């Protein structure tokens, strides 16, 4: 409790609040741009944090994350074009409501449901992360190895439409993770006589390349002069009333908990959560037949779930260093830049940073609630921005962000390389998430395995692993996740994935 009070006292400074307001609005802007994701927003804005204190820097990234996940719903509702993949479920009923002249109600519901989703999820993070970080102290090298493998198997099975392509992407990520000195004897691998590569590939330039630059190349290739034609003059925003805030309390809680749980699973992001939230909302609704026809409760079900992911995905990121999705992988990069380590230390030695950061997520949710209720429709106009200007500015920002990490021009070339790699993979229907998580989890897995071999002292590695209960639990989870593709044939999961695929 004292840590929470300390967090509140540290975050409530004029500068931090301004940073959070700015971050949330920037996040909403990125979220409202079709084709741009929360990951891209966080990646592009990382350089802004370099000159800030760790608290302000992380608060900015957290605010961008919350704002972007919510912002995706605005264009989904008003022009049937989800700003982010996470808002695809919202588009279904949200746009139908707009067509019926209820666009204002849909926007209000999306804002309120996102707010509750974010608040409940941030509360879960605040309550669950510290004890989990404490529990993580029991994790030795064998547990970290198994945890990394568990993360990788889930990534492969959940992120890709094609299992084979998912595995190949994961292998590419793991191989990138081998660049630099190996953790056992310090032999330099795949550094191609570049001194800058001896310490491995810098995470932030690689992420900016994979997420932002690859999308810049795609937008240039698609050749549209603006993202979409927008006309929102006919949407009349009605003044929100108190009742709007508490329209579907049960839906908000259920979907937010779904989002939090899904978010905590590595690689299962906001888009999966919103479809599960939508389907469960329909299942428990008194009027399931109204879903899909422009029903306010449907918008609430999807939106509370996708914003519920924000806090959930940070639980494993902050406690175990295993990112819940690609956006938190980039946030993890931001954390490393500030010289912070995830786990127990973050909640004890660096509690003065971790707690204000978590509290900042609550504030970000309040910011988008106010901005969204009064000005959401104007964000849809962002989609009018000419592509030639947008792509150019984003590239320049990416260059600056990559350079500023270590003040090394080599990192800018790394960003370009990863941009081209990401573009090539996108054109061939590969996904970037397994690569990113492979890059992060690969070194953890290799180090865990090497240290386990040393700790086993020449004895049987299998016997050493089998003597540790957490390892056995993780092994069972790995087996379950490997069989997850088979689970997709079950009625429930099939429904979820089919809905996702049909969007």
């Amino acid at each position: 409790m004292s840590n929470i009070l300390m967090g509140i006292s540290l975050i409530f400074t004029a500068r931090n609040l301004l940073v959070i307001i700015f971050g949330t609005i920037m996040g909403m802007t990125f979220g409202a741009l079709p084709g741009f994701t929360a990951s891209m927003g966080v990646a592009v804005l990382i350089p802004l944090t370099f000159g800030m204190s760790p608290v302000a820097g992380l608060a900015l990234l957290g605010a961008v994350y919350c704002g972007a996940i919510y912002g995706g719903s605005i264009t989904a509702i008003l022009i049937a074009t989800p700003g982010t993949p996470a808002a695809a479920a919202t588009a279904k009923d949200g746009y139908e409501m707009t067509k019926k002249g209820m666009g204002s109600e849909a926007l209000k519901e999306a804002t309120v449901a996102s707010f509750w989703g974010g608040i409940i999820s941030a509360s879960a993070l605040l309550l669950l992360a510290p004890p989990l970080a404490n529990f993580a102290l029991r994790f030795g090298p064998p547990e970290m190895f198994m945890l990394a493998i568990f993360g990788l198997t889930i990534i492969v099975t959940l992120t890709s439409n094609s299992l084979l392509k998912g595995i190949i992407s994961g292998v590419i990520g793991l191989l990138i993770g081998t660049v630099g000195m190996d953790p056992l004897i310090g032999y330099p691998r795949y550094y191609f006589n570049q001194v800058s590569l001896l310490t491995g590939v810098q995470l932030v330039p690689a992420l900016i390349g994979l997420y932002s630059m690859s999308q810049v190349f795609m937008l240039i290739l698609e050749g549209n002069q603006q993202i979409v034609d927008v006309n929102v003059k006919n949407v009349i925003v009605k003044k929100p009333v108190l009742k709007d805030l508490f329209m579907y309390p049960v839906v908000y809680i259920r979907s937010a908990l779904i989002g939090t749980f899904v978010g905590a699973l590595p690689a299962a992001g906001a888009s999966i959560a919103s479809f599960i939230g939508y389907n469960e909302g329909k299942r428990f609704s008194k009027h399931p037949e109204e879903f899909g026809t422009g029903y306010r409760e449907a918008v609430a079900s999807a939106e509370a779930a996708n914003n519920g992911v924000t806090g959930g995905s940070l639980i494993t990121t902050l406690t175990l260093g295993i990112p819940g999705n690609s956006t938190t992988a980039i946030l993890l990069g931001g954390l490393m830049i500030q010289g912070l380590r995830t786990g127990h230390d973050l909640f004890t030695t660096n509690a003065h940073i971790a707690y204000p950061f978590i509290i900042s997520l609550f504030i970000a949710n309040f910011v988008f609630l106010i901005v969204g209720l009064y000005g959401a429709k104007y964000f849809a106009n962002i989609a009018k921005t000419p592509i030639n200007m947008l792509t150019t500015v984003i590239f320049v920002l990416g260059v600056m962000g990559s350079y500023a990490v270590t003040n090394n021009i080599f990192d800018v070339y790394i960003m370009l390389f990863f941009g081209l790699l990401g573009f090539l993979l996108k054109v061939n229907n590969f996904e970037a998430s397994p690569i990113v998580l492979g890059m992060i989890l690969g070194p953890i897995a290799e180090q865990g395995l090497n240290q386990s071999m040393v700790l086993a002292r020449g004895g049987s590695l299998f016997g050493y692993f089998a003597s540790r209960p957490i390892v056995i639990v993780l092994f069972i989870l790995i087996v379950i996740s490997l069989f997850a593709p088979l689970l997709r044939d079950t009625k429930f999961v099939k429904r979820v994935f089919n809905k996702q695929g049909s969007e």
Partner: protein
Amino acid sequence: MHKQDMTNNNRMFSVFLMIVFIALYFVALSFPDKSAIYPKGLLIVGMICVTAMFIGTFIGKNDEEKKVFINRDELIKLIISIALMILYVILLTVLGYAVSTFIYMLIQIWVLKPEKKISYLIVALVSTTILYVGFGIFLKIWLPKGLFF
């Protein structure tokens, strides 16, 4: 027709990946055993998967995937843009951040939509100023230095 295109894409890309994986495997042969086990293992898994993907293109096991349509004119624009980007990165340390960013933005915006518009000049100038002053001076972020600023 589209599915056929995607099959060809998958076939070509699997060959490309196989060449990269084999090349990396040969590089790994020069590593000491303890350093080589992990990357070699990964590469073998990668090669097996790529082979399966390649074989899959002949037996119709490809997943239904969306095809990215490539227009010749836009492809040329993309190639020119990438060349400009590389040139910009090279010039950063020669001319300095602000000057090279202004020149790059002006040319890049024009290449993507060749019209004589004063707004292009304004966007390039305002963006460069905001980035240089905001990041370089206000936030004290290190920016590449060159002959100018």
